[in-house]
């Protein structure tokens, strides 16, 4: 607004100045031509000293209303003839024509005085001076200034109008849009919409695009929420399903615990009574068969018990505590005393660390592993069972080594499967549940178990307890 006003003003002023200069030049040149005409008309009068004739020539200037007065001087600067439009008017003292020039112009207040030499046959015959009124110029100036001022006012008014219109059409919606963007980003409320404007401008397109974007965000939000709800619903469903399956499993294991054992007891009980009461009447093979029946019943009883134990461990939660593994292994060896009574076993128990694990579950695992070692060294004369640890890749690896029957490394992966056995039960009794139980315990701790073995040379079982194991002071003391 201010800028356009200033530019307009400057342009007007420049135009005015240019016009003034041009007009003055035009005026001076027209005056110069008139002086030339009058001058050449007055040559003979000057030559013959005919003042009357010179006056008559001068009076022709009456036709030009702006010429106030004129005078002819002789070459020796004497006044020769003059003319004034208004008899009251006196011509001001004419300016001198500088040497070497034939013309002089002098703008004084409201007058322009032009002086010109009158040439005749290469000499100066005299001088003519014409005084012209500048009213025309001033009028013109005032007129022009008026026009410029008018244009300025009109164009400023127009600018004001346009700016207010543009404010209504552009600024207001832009400010509204910016405010809406702020509110939306602050409140995260994507249901808001910017007010659309009724035009086909770029701004209307911008607002439409913004609203479209909000719609898309809102739609996506809705879809996300729906997906989340669905997911939650599905999780709840699965959880319920799992709970139901768990309950079924529990009912199953309860029923196994209760109902499968009773018939086994009957088989065992009645075959024993049969053997006791009617044994003498039976021949050797019949007695052997009875024994087989009882062995079978007892083995199945053991299987059921072990399986139930494993299922129970599977359901149990790991409650971690700081466990002194050294003390735990010593306890386990003592607990197993009855299994190796009367045998000579060299126990090598290293300075095992304190680890973070479930003490009850860890005891079951260690007892199982040591019991295996005791069992499979049964046929060794100098049985050595070792329990120790080492560090590997930042983890504590616990191992239990024996020099017993060992196994073929090729089948090592089968050791931990339920009911999987690498030895015949005539050689070494067992249900094939022990190592599966140990593996389950280790895995519940987030650890790993593996084994190395060689037939008739022994076996080593290694395990880690995952990232949770805490190193003890004892380990660092070593």
């Amino acid at each position: 607004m201010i800028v356009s006003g200033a530019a307009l003003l400057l342009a007007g002023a420049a135009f005015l100045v240019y016009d003034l200069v041009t007009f003055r030049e035009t005026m001076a040149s027209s005056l110069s031509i008139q002086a030339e005409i009058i001058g050449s008309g007055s040559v003979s009068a000057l030559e013959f000293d005919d003042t009357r004739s010179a006056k008559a020539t001068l009076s022709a200037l009456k036709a030009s209303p702006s010429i106030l007065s004129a005078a002819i001087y002789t070459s020796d600067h004497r006044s020769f003839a003059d003319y004034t439009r208004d008899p009251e008017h006196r011509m001001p003292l004419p300016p001198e024509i500088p040497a070497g020039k034939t013309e002089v112009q002098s703008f004084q207040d409201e007058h322009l005085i032009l002086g010109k030499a009158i040439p005749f046959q290469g000499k100066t015959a005299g001088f003519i001076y014409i005084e012209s009124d500048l009213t025309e110029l001033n009028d013109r100036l005032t007129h022009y200034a008026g026009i410029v001022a008018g244009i300025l006012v009109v164009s400023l008014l127009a600018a004001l109008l346009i700016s207010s219109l543009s404010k209504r059409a552009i600024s207001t919606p832009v400010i509204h849009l910016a405010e809406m963007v702020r509110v939306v980003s602050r409140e995260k409320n994507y249901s808001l919409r910017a007010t659309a404007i009724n035009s086909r401008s770029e701004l209307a397109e911008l607002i439409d695009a913004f609203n479209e974007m909000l719609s898309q965000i809102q739609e996506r939000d809705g879809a996300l929420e729906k997906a989340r709800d669905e997911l939650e619903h599905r999780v709840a469903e699965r959880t319920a399903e799992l709970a139901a399956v768990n309950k079924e499993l529990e009912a199953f294991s309860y029923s196994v615990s209760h109902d499968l054992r009773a018939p086994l007891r009957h088989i065992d009980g009645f075959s024993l009574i049969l053997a006791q009461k009617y044994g003498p009447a039976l021949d050797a093979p019949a007695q052997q068969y009875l024994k087989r029946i009882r062995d079978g019943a007892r083995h199945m009883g053991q299987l059921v018990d072990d399986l139930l134990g494993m299922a129970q461990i599977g359901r149990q939660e790991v409650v971690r505590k700081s466990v002194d593994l050294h003390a735990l292994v010593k306890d386990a060896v003592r607990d197993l005393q009855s299994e190796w009574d009367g045998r000579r076993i060299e126990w090598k128990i290293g300075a095992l660390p304190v680890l973070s694990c479930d003490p009850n579950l860890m005891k079951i695992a260690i007892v199982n592993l040591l019991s295996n070692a005791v069992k499979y060294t049964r046929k060794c004369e100098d049985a050595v069972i070792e329990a120790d640890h080492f560090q590997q890749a930042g983890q504590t690896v616990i191992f239990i080594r024996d020099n017993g029957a060992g196994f073929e490394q090729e089948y090592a992966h089968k050791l931990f499967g339920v009911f999987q056995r690498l030895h015949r039960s005539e050689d070494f009794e067992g249900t094939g549940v022990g190592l599966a139980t140990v593996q389950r315990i280790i895995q519940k701790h987030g650890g790993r178990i593996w084994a190395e073995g060689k037939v008739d040379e022994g076996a080593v079982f290694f395990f880690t307890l995952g990232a949770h194991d805490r190193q003890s002071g004892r380990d660092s003391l070593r």
Partner: protein
Amino acid sequence: MTDRAVEILYVEDDIADVELTMLALQASGVANRIQVARDGVEALDYLFCRGKHVDRDFSIPKVVLLDLKLPKVSGLEVLQAIRNDPRTRMLPVVILTSSREQRDLVDSYKLGVNSFIQKPVDFEQFSQTIRQLGFYWLLVNEVPSPGANEL
């Protein structure tokens, strides 16, 4: 049944178990007067002189051997009924069951069982357990004399 007081009320639905237990008890020679109930209702009828035992003179045995899984009224319900009645509140009850579920143990002890024994599969162990059971509850254990609970 004779008029002589029953020493053991044995509640068991499985006929084979009944037979094996009776053989074991008889072999041990500690008890001859055993009343067998084949379900929970029968056990309560006998104890509280109802149903077919309505004509019985009320007397309490020295011990009740109770299976958990019984038709109609379960072992735990029988136990609860025994503990709820002032006449039988102090009657020794031994759970004798195949179950080894922790839940059963906890529930039984919460209801005030005196002992919880899991029947071993091995008959020799089973016989030994029954023998010890009879010996302990009939010969070693002392119970308050009838009427003492009013004190």
